[in-house]
């Protein structure tokens, strides 16, 4: 039964990937492509689908990790201020004429900002030789408010067109996706995901509480730090790829828990796959619904995802969600 479900789940994810590649404002038949279509597929569709897949995977896995590490079903990577910190860094970079990285300046400063905020959240969450979930969460929420406020302030004071673009980009825009950032971002995401998979037993144990995790032979604080770092790495890479996409980090792990179960050994990879496939699907809908207008993927994910989540919540009898 479980195996059937997992197989179906994987098949669906694969089907969505293929569909996202061939469908769109212009349908492409991969078996009979014209030169133009080949060009569209290779330099527009493929990088865009790759970015959506990578971002969705990073966010889905990050959410699953963070909800476990913080022992809080309402946790998601953005609540810790990582996205607002990234947006602020990107905006500051643009304002100060920080174009060192050429076309990649916005994503690179976003990545640096996201990583710095992760370290900052970690530093505030650190006491007596370890990270404490409540402290992490509250520190993250505090920093989130601070960065959002400063960003608002910058926006209201500045008339810089570039800044406005950067802020729009931060709200989740995949239309600019190209190959430039994919190699470096995918390295970070693969490393983060690898660490999380390797530590998924520890994540399960941490969910039972520090005391059980200790009793089962885990170095609680070390495991929490490693998992937090893996989450921060993936989230930072994701933000730099295409800005802030909501819903996936928070609710995808819950959907996967309801469909496939809560065991982190399955939950982390399945949340990654589900997040990736879902963002590809949302992006496909966003760009196909009323071309040439594009709906921002961050909005589409929530519009499709939230009702489905609410339906599952009603249908399944699980007090824990």
């Amino acid at each position, binding site marked *: 039964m479980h195996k059937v479900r997992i197989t179906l789940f994987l098949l669906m994810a694969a089907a969505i990937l293929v569909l996202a590649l061939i469908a769109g404002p212009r349908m492409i038949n991969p078996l009979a492509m014209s030169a133009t279509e080949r060009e569209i597929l290779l330099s527009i569709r493929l990088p865009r689908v790759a970015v959506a897949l990578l971002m969705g995977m990073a966010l889905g896995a990050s959410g699953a990790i963070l*909800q*476990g590490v913080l*022992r809080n*079903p309402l946790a998601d990577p953005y609540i810790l201020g990582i996205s607002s910190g990234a947006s602020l860094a990107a905006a500051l970079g643009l304002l100060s004429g920080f174009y060192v990285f050429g076309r990649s300046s916005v994503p690179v400063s976003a990545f640096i900002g996201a990583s710095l905020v992760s370290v900052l959240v970690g530093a505030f969450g650190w006491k*007596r030789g370890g990270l404490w979930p409540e402290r992490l969460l509250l520190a993250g929420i505090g920093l989130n408010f601070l960065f959002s406020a400063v960003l608002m302030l910058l926006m209201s004071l500045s008339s810089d067109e570039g800044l406005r673009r950067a802020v729009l980009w931060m709200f989740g825009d995949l239309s600019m996706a190209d190959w430039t950032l994919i190699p470096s971002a995918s390295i970070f995401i693969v490393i983060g995901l690898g660490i999380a998979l390797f530590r998924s*037993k520890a994540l*399960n*144990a941490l*969910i*039972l*509480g520090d*005391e*059980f995790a*200790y*009793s*089962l*032979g*885990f*170095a609680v604080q070390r495991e929490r730090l490693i998992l937090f770092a893996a989450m921060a790495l993936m989230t930072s890479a994701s933000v730099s790829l295409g800005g802030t996409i909501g819903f996936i980090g928070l609710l995808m792990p819950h959907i996967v*828990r309801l469909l496939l*179960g*809560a*065991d982190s050994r399955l939950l982390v990879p399945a949340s990654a796959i589900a997040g990736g496939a879902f963002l590809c699907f949302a992006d496909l809908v966003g760009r196909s619904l009323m071309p040439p207008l594009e709906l921002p993927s961050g909005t589409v994910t929530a519009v499709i995802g939230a009702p489905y989540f609410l339906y599952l919540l009603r249908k399944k*009898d*699980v*007090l*824990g*969600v």
Partner: protein
Amino acid sequence: MFSAYSGPILELDRVSFRYPGAGRIIDDLTFAIGGGEFIGLLGANGSGKSTILKLAAGMVRPDRGIVKLWDRPLAAYRNKDRAKLLCYFPQHLDVSVPFTVREIVGMGMYPYDIPPAMAVDEAMDTVGLLDKADVYVTNLSGGERRRVFIAMTLIQGAGILLLDEPLANLDIRYQIEFLRLLRRLQEQKGISVVMALHDINVALQFEKVMVIKNGAVLGIGAPEAVLTGPMIRDAFDVSIELRKAEHGMYITHEKWF
């Protein structure tokens, strides 16, 4: 390796501890647990029972003194090796994630690279939860959840169990069944148990009790010798008269309210 050793298997030697910023103190505590020994730890709320268990488990490190497991400093063990010998069972079980019973019980295997002899099904059967193997723990009652974690502990298979109020939330049937299960494990596998309690009548069933007040030992020994009326009034700070019934159980003399 162990056969040549006949001393205590877990030993707290002149251990002192204080939580940062808190007044609660364990002061110069020394006690030892021998193989196959059952010790009931009795004391009022806040007397330091949980802290003593956490010190014995190595979850908190003493400010002074040393904790030894099999005559070797507990801190010197690798985490996984320690987990095969020593199991700590916390007082509060809160799981908000919908793991199934089977998933949690299976986590008892985590310290092992090669799964131990006791199968997950057998452990669930022992605590009477085999028919609920695939139920979410979030949908179980408090007592059932406790039994899930007891089954996990069985899989973990440690020889020393440090249990913090394991009988809380259990109705009398499962209290008795749990104690009998521990007794069976003691007879079959020679496990040692230290159990924090607050029920005097349960403590009377143990071979050895230790009464704690303000982090220090008020008395230790056989319950008949230690659990006297004055001792209990002192430990729990309550002025009630106690009377022993024929079968050894305590009953209070007067109406409480």
